[in-house]
């Protein structure tokens, strides 16, 4: 275990490097969650589409993602994506994470879409709105609102999962810790420092998620 003074010296001495890494961690997380929301919405819609074959496609995607470890997916997707088209590193890494997040987000949306009572759909249809219009104007806005708290949690999970992008050359927090750490033969100090960064980020996000939850439950009254 490193001494406290050594820990703080490194913590503050290298803070610019860590802050850059933290920003990359946040960028990876935001992009992979935003893209994951698009992917997740797409597969959730397949699943609730009433067309069986589309539902199966969605099932297979979700099963593949939920049935394998993220680290395996990251390696396969990163190199798999590369062999199809050459995205810049950041986008390849984000897409790999997004495909992972997408499966979990698809499940979130499927749940909240199905939680909207059938009467809402029927009210829209009875007013002459097409299925697509009803979905877009009536169902999805409500499903999105209900999805906010679980999406917040998925964001926190995604933040932590982004650490595995270290293995595909992203200089995010964990990568910086192990790279600088093993370069200096002093991994423990660096690992403890990034752990502190993660703890702070997660604490802030948890507070935000709780605020959203509270606000929604008040405005639902």
């Amino acid at each position, binding site marked *: 275990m490193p001494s406290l003074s050594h820990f703080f010296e490194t913590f503050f001495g290298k803070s610019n490097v860590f802050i850059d890494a933290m920003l990359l961690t946040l960028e990876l997380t935001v992009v992979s969650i935003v893209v994951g929301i698009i992917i997740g919405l797409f597969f959730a819609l397949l699943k609730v589409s009433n067309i069986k074959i589309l539902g199966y496609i969605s099932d297979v995607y979700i099963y593949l993602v939920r049935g394998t470890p993220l680290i395996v997916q990251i390696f396969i997707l990163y*190199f798999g994506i*590369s*062999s199809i088209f*050459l995205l810049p*590193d950041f986008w390849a890494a984000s897409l790999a994470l997004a495909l992972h997040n997408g499966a979990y987000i698809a499940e979130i949306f499927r749940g909240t879409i199905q939680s909207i009572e059938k009467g809402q759909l029927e009210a829209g249809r009875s007013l002459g709105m097409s299925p697509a219009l009803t979905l877009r104007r009536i169902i999805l806005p409500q499903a999105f609102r209900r999805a906010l708290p679980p999406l917040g949690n998925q964001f926190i999970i995604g933040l932590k999962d982004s650490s595995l992008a*270290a*293995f*595909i*050359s992203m*200089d995010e927090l964990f*990568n910086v810790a*192990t*790279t600088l*750490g*093993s*370069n*200096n*033969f*002093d*991994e*423990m100090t660096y690992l403890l420092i990034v752990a502190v960064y993660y703890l702070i980020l997660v604490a802030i996000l948890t507070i935000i998620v709780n605020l959203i939850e509270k606000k929604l439950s008040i405005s639902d009254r």
Partner: protein
Amino acid sequence: AEKEQLEDGTKLIQKDQFVFASSGEFKPFSFVKDDMEVTGFDVEVGKAVAEKLGLEPVPKRIKFKGIVEGVKTGRADAAVASHTVNPQRSKHVSFTTPYYYSGPQIFVRPDSKLKNIEDLKGKEIAASKGSTYADTAAEYSKNIKTYDSDITALKALSEGRHDAVITDFVTGKTAIKAGFDIVGRQLIERSEQSIVIPQDNPQLLKRVNTALEELRQDGTLKKLSQKYFGEDITTKPE
């Protein structure tokens, strides 16, 4: 963690074993056979050292990033893993005398115009994480990407990612032999590779240095180098 202490002060995890670590993902220095048994130049050097010490050799694979911390925290007695000596590292661990000399080389795709270190400026360079090659690369460019293993970095290069990889010339050569679509360019510098021993074990350091000297003298090191590289990389180049 408490290790067992021999009469002469040498500390070992098991008193009759020499547990040494390598990554197993650094062909031909350390790699696994199809039954997952680890072998390679580093591993055979480690085994030879163990024999000279009169101990049972126990090779152990730890992913490259964790090797040094593994040695420091007592998960292995030593690392025979192609670690390059540098002064900063010496603050945290002890290095033996070098058991081979090597150097980083620039690797690119065959169609690349990039030839030497001057051309590296502003280019995207990949290297393996935690290796000194990443530092070397950083001297020439700000745009560095790191991977868990050299092979992964070279693989990414051959698939069209990054402009160059800096890695050990032997590793590059092996990858080219395996069919990677890359070529070697300038050899950058010379470096010394040593066995890593924890700092609190000076007696073991002394005994391993003695063993290495014996292996140099009786030609074992040279023989192993010939076997793996077709040349002797264990003597200091002039």
